[in-house]
């Protein structure tokens, strides 16, 4: 994607229909390690028709090369994902772990993050989904959203936080 940008950014619409879904949420997820957590969440995306059967392996492989652990202010998180070729439609599976799991830290070789929140991203087309990705980044940055995800009690609660457009710092 190469663009020349002039001075006025055009308006864009945030399209997050069906990206977040209570069927794609696991609270109190039990997983021994990062790979297990990824595979559990990938299973939800596969069942619901968001990804191909090869998606889980691809995410696990990519996580080894380019880890996605993020140390947020209030908790550790991870945003594993892979190339669009493994994705049928864009969606996000969210897992809150019963016991934190170790992920490599994004951009910091040798460092790790103890993750409680895993957002498994299935992105069909980054160019057209850029607002959705920006939305996820905003959510992750927000201490308010972090707190709500920690204390969410149901899958619907989690989806409500993930979908909320009023993201406060």
């Amino acid at each position: 994607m190469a663009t020349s940008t002039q001075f006025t950014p055009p308006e864009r619409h945030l399209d997050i229909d069906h990206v977040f879904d209570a069927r794609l949420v696991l609270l109190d997820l039990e997983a021994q390690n990062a790979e297990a957590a990824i595979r559990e969440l990938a299973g939800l995306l596969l069942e619901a028709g968001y990804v191909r059967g090869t998606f889980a392996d691809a995410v696990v492989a990519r996580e080894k090369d380019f880890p996605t652990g993020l140390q947020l202010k209030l908790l550790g998180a991870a945003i594993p994902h892979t190339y669009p070729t493994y994705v049928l439609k864009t969606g996000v599976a969210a897992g809150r772990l019963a016991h934190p799991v170790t992920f490599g830290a994004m951009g910091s070789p040798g460092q790790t993050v103890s993750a409680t929140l895993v957002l498994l991203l299935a992105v069909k087309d980054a160019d057209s989904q850029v607002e959705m990705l920006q939305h996820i980044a905003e959510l992750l940055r927000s201490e308010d959203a972090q707190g709500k995800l920690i204390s969410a009690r149901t899958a619907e609660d989690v989806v409500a936080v993930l979908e909320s457009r009023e993201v406060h710092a």
Partner: protein
Amino acid sequence: MGKKDLEPVHVLCICGTGVAGAAIVHETLRTLFAELKIPVQLETGASIQMETLFETSHVDMIVHTSILPRKFGVPSFLAIPLYTGIGEKEMLEGIRQAAREIWAKKLDDAGEAQ
């Protein structure tokens, strides 16, 4: 004899897959450069494409969420703060400052080539 063509600031937006992180960086920079009113050419890519991207045309700046294979001798910014919020203001200010300096130099160079 005319002025040397004024090229936009060329920025590579890089992440592991060249997909998600690069798109987030791209979107952030699109807005940032628009606010600065500095023309920019934003290009997304994966870490493994870095050598090719760097050789293909002159690169002024790199903003990346994955580790780069080596130093490229241009201002480079690790953009993890876009995800964590920690150190975000400082990083964005660093990018703005670098963008202004690069653009000022381009204007200077264009002015000299008459």
